[in-house]
């Protein structure tokens, strides 16, 4: 579903990611791990078409991200690191706006907004201004936005960062529900290991722009607990 070959991004002299190779099969839920600044967000931005790569190729659902970006964008639901919400809009108005941007058919718009609101657990705050809802809810509104249009690929950049433990639990449950649907492929970046263990089957780990591990969780945990593996690989 996602095919990345030799993906490289340089900012002037800084190399953010250097020749990444990986592929993700349909229906997989993959944790994208790595210390801060390892290049996780950069990779995700390139995959979603919000940033170009310096070299290499990336395909989503068999479509090249650089050649036909508009088609790729229709297939992807993306939650950036900070939820891209307008504080001065209501949750309902915001979701309807994103539905328009994503080209959700007009007749289905209302039901589609209600569906994602229910799925992300924001159905009871639909009429509130986003400014007036808590951080956890903003994060969930961001998720609802990513789910709009029923994308086959979901890319989420640290969806639980900055939330309180109860909110983290709720978001995690939501992620589990999303991952259970076999039609969806999920790439989830995080540096919270328990989250990965709870939600993902496979891990791709990056450090300083390189892939240092790519294996099912069970396999990685065979030798040592995931925390140790992570710590060792992150500094290696």
């Amino acid at each position, binding site marked *: 579903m996602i095919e990345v070959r030799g993906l490289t991004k340089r900012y002037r002299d800084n190399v953010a990611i250097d020749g990444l190779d990986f592929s993700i099969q349909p229906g997989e839920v993959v944790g994208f791990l790595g210390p801060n600044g390892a290049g996780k967000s950069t990779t995700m931005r390139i995959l979603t*078409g919000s940033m170009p790569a310096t070299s290499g190729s990336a395909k989503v659902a068999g479509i090249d991200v650089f050649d036909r970006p*508009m088609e790729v964008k229709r297939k992807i639901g993306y939650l950036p690191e900070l939820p*891209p919400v*307008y*504080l*001065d809009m209501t949750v309902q108005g915001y979701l309807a*706006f994103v539905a328009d941007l994503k080209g959700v058919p007009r007749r289905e718009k209302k039901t589609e907004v209600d569906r994602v609101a229910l799925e992300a657990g924001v159905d009871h705050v639909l009429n509130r201004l986003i400014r007036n809802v808590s951080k956890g809810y903003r994060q969930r509104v961001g998720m609802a936005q990513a789910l709009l249009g029923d994308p086959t690929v979901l890319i989420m950049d640290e969806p639980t960062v900055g939330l309180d433990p109860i909110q983290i639990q709720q978001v995690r449950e939501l992620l589990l529900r999303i991952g259970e649907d076999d039609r969806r492929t999920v790439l989830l970046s995080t540096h919270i290991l328990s989250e990965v263990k709870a939600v993902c089957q496979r891990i791709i780990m990056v450090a300083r722009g390189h892939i240092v591990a790519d294996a099912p969780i069970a396999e990685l945990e065979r030798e040592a607990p995931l925390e140790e593996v992570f710590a060792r690989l992150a500094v290696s």
Partner: protein
Amino acid sequence: MRGLFAIARKELSIFFTTTIAYAGLGAYAFLMGLVFVSSLNQYQQRTAIFLSQQQPQMLERLNFNDAILTPMFSTGVWMFLFFVPFLTMRLLAEEKNQNTFELLMTTPISSWQIVLGKFIATWVLILVMSFIPLVFPFILEAYGTTTGTSSAVEWSPVLVSVLMATLMGSSFIALGMLMSSLTDSQIVAALLTFATLLLSYTLPFVANRLEGDWQTVLDYASPLSHVNRAFQGRLLAEDLVYFLSLTLAGLIVTQRVVESNRWR
């Protein structure tokens, strides 16, 4: 097209859920009211003077258009200088600051849809701003008396003035949006727009001190010289072309700047 209207609708809804539209339009209407009242007062004083001096030929020359409406529109142009930067400053700078720019970049809409959608939404406000002063000629028409059989206000110069104010507003929005696309700070965007507009407003004063070609060029470059002709009731193709090409140029460059985020 749908993405364009979605953007336009979203911008308008933000203008009206926040206080921007109410504060902006309210303050503008109030200030224009003040300008109108003071023009009207001057007019009354002049009439009184001419009456006391027994100068009927001067009285005959006095009319609402030249003595009240033209000065009012000319002052109104200075309001645009102050109000437009506030309307345009957040258009793109805020998107970049709030991370919503990434949403626009990752949904299947084109840069043109983003730029034109935002332009249209702001243009609606400018349209309202241009039409607000139309209230005053109606007041003159209703309460003014005239010696002849014609109406108290001559309407064609008024309509030309409103049209040209709208066009001038469009070119200012395009400029403001360009400034907003260049920075992620709203304050910087507003200041750059304001400084550029102020500079263009001062050109005729500089031109007055010059002679020859430079005078013509500087005079032509300033929006003031173009609108002032319209306020006197003259509709020239040259002036239409001036504002339309400025608007178009501003929009094209803004689109390029927005698009550049996809390949930088």
